[in-house]
């Protein structure tokens, strides 16, 4: 069995660890690229949301590398993602690929975690539940460590003194991670690079803009889809905060377990005056986190959503009001396979200009009121 899974940012690192620890051969799909998207678009229904298309591309590229088993999240959301695997299986079968699909559901109860572990049991062929549980926990830990590491990267990138240092370090990091195997080695690499990162020269007094990113999880986490937004903003000296990460996503499902904490309740509290029910996807998070960013005095918020994404469109119409009521600028970026880079970048630059001038105006007003 050669197992593969779709990409979503750095989530693959944790999945890779789980399967490696279980002794299964893993085929990590090639990093999302133009070919992935073109392949995926070619074989997907035209009006599907972009995460679907990219994932189809990932599968096809992995199959080419020999994968025969697909592992993916899916199942219970009320949105289109609930049908991803059914349609995708059909598409792959029609293309003549004889593959197995393992679909895991969200893990909101002990029963569902068991279900997940059973899938792992199937994959690994071992009946040793202790081993399975251990690799599952190792996967979770990896996920959290990676997200912490990425948050640190974001902070430092915005303040680096020698331009490009962080990016260089990061690409070495990815290279080592991809060559490394197993939990211990992966953690070692993260630790090493964290040290290196902390040794980089940074300008601690630099005034950086703070921008929060909200939106549909896939478009936030997969750099290829959002045109490397987070990296780019960092290199423009902006400190970005991602409101959705895969570790938070999992923590929110598992937080019925006493020692696991998530921000879920905080987010629900913040979104309540505008939207107090779950409507699928990440809409409630988008609304809640935007409110939280305004409470924390962020300079602005960027809202990422796939074209025709149903829950995020609802969120978006609410954000237009929050923008006014909370006086926080919001830039909406709609992403699909046709999103052109030039127009996209121009909009981001214009947005940053707006944020800078607002900041200057504010500090000017402050200095006047002091004198």
């Amino acid at each position: 069995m050669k197992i593969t899974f779709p990409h979503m940012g750095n989530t693959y690192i944790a999945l890779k660890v789980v399967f490696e620890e279980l002794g299964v051969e893993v085929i990590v799909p090639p990093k999302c690229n133009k070919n992935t998207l073109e392949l995926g678009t070619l074989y997907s229904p035209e009006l599907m949301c972009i995460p679907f298309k990219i994932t189809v591309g990932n599968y096809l590229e992995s199959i080419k590398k020999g994968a025969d088993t697909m592992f993916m999240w899916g199942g219970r959301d009320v949105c289109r993602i609930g049908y991803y695997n059914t349609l995708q299986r059909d598409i792959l079968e029609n293309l003549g690929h004889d593959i197995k699909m393992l679909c895991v559901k969200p893990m909101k109860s002990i029963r569902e975690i068991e279900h997940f572990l059973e899938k792992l049991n199937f994959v690994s062929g071992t009946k040793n539940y202790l081993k399975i549980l251990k690799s599952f926990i190792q996967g979770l830990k990896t996920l959290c460590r990676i997200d912490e590491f990425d948050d640190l990267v974001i902070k430092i990138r915005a303040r680096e003194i020698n331009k490009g240092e962080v990016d260089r370090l990061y690409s070495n990091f990815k290279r080592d991670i991809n060559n490394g195997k197993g939990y211990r080695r992966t953690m070692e690499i993260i630790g090493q690079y964290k040290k290196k990162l902390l040794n980089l020269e940074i300008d601690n007094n630099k005034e950086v803009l703070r921008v929060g990113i909200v939106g549909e999880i896939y478009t936030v986490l997969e750099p290829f889809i959002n045109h490397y937004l987070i990296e780019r903003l960092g290199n423009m000296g902006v400190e970005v905060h991602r409101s959705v990460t895969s570790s938070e996503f999992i923590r929110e499902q598992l937080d019925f377990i006493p020692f696991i904490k998530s921000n879920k309740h905080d987010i629900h509290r913040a979104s309540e005056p505008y939207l107090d029910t779950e409507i699928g996807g990440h809409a409630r998070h988008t609304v809640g986190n935007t409110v939280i960013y305004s409470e924390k005095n962020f300079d602005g918020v960027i809202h990422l959503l796939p074209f025709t994404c149903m829950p995020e469109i609802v969120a978006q119409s609410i954000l237009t009001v929050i923008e006014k009521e909370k006086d926080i600028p919001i830039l909406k970026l709609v992403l699909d396979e046709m999103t052109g880079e030039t127009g996209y970048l121009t909009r981001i630059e214009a947005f940053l200009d707006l944020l800078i001038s607002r900041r200057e105006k504010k500090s000017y007003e402050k200095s006047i009121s002091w004198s």
Partner: protein
Amino acid sequence: MPIKVGIPRALLFYEYYSLWISFFEELGAEVIVSEKTNKEIIDIGVKNTVDEACLPVKVFHGHVMDLKNRVDYIFIPRIISLTEGEYICPKFCGLPEMIKYSIKDIPKFIDTTINFRKSKKNLNRTVMEIGSYITQDKKKIKRAFEIATEKYNNHRMLMETGLLPNDMLKKDFLGEVPQPSKKDKVLLLGHPYNIYDSYMSMEVIDKLRKHGLRVVTCDNLETDVIDEKAKTLNKKMFWSFGRKILGTTLHAIEDDGVCGIIYMACFGCGLDSVIAEIVERKVRRSSDKPFAMLSLDEHTGEAGINTRIEAFVDMIRWREDHEDNLSTYR
């Protein structure tokens, strides 16, 4: 002066109008339904909705605009689920918010949450809450709902005889039933608010009828039959709309009287992108009935749709003429 309740002639209106109208009327309210969809309503809706929204939601905004200055309340329930274990499009859950935050100076809403996903147990509470906007008399609300339900059930029964909502909504509707004939049924699939809104659908139903075809939809089939068929799907369809469409499709595939299938999809609709795909795969795999996909958006030209319809009808006729030859080959 009776309280004026406005009901937008859009979205689920086409499914539930008989229930909603008679309920509010029985409570003593004056019900005002917005004008039929026209260019003005669409334009004003498009202008007042976030760009990315689908056309039906934009049109809904237009209908709310049409009502906003002439009613006391607008009926915009927050619909999460209509059937146990099922959902509808996420946009319906956020509809009251979308309207509230996009349209200024809007009258009060009746935005009661309708959520029967776990069970219909809270039906009574839901009805009472909606009714309480008009009267505090619980008995009256109960009675009104009973009468409305009866009307609604009658309405559904009439549809099972072959009538369509857009026939019954006609002012001069006298209750006659179109004469069924043999092999001339076309199954028209799509959201009720796309296929029954004659402006949106560019009168697809009338056009097909003019070609001598009889149009049937999910509404003409008994619910039990649909459910029975839908149960045979490998993957349960959790959108109520999708279950109906797929159940009906499976039934039509086996029904020799159905000579063709049309799916009227709407650009930007998340549900259509999934369901139309499943339908098309099913039809093409397990039948040789002509199938056409018509896609609607703000810019769809009538000429284009006409050409598609004609090509579709030609295909049906061609099949009829060659039927005998075809069957000898089999």
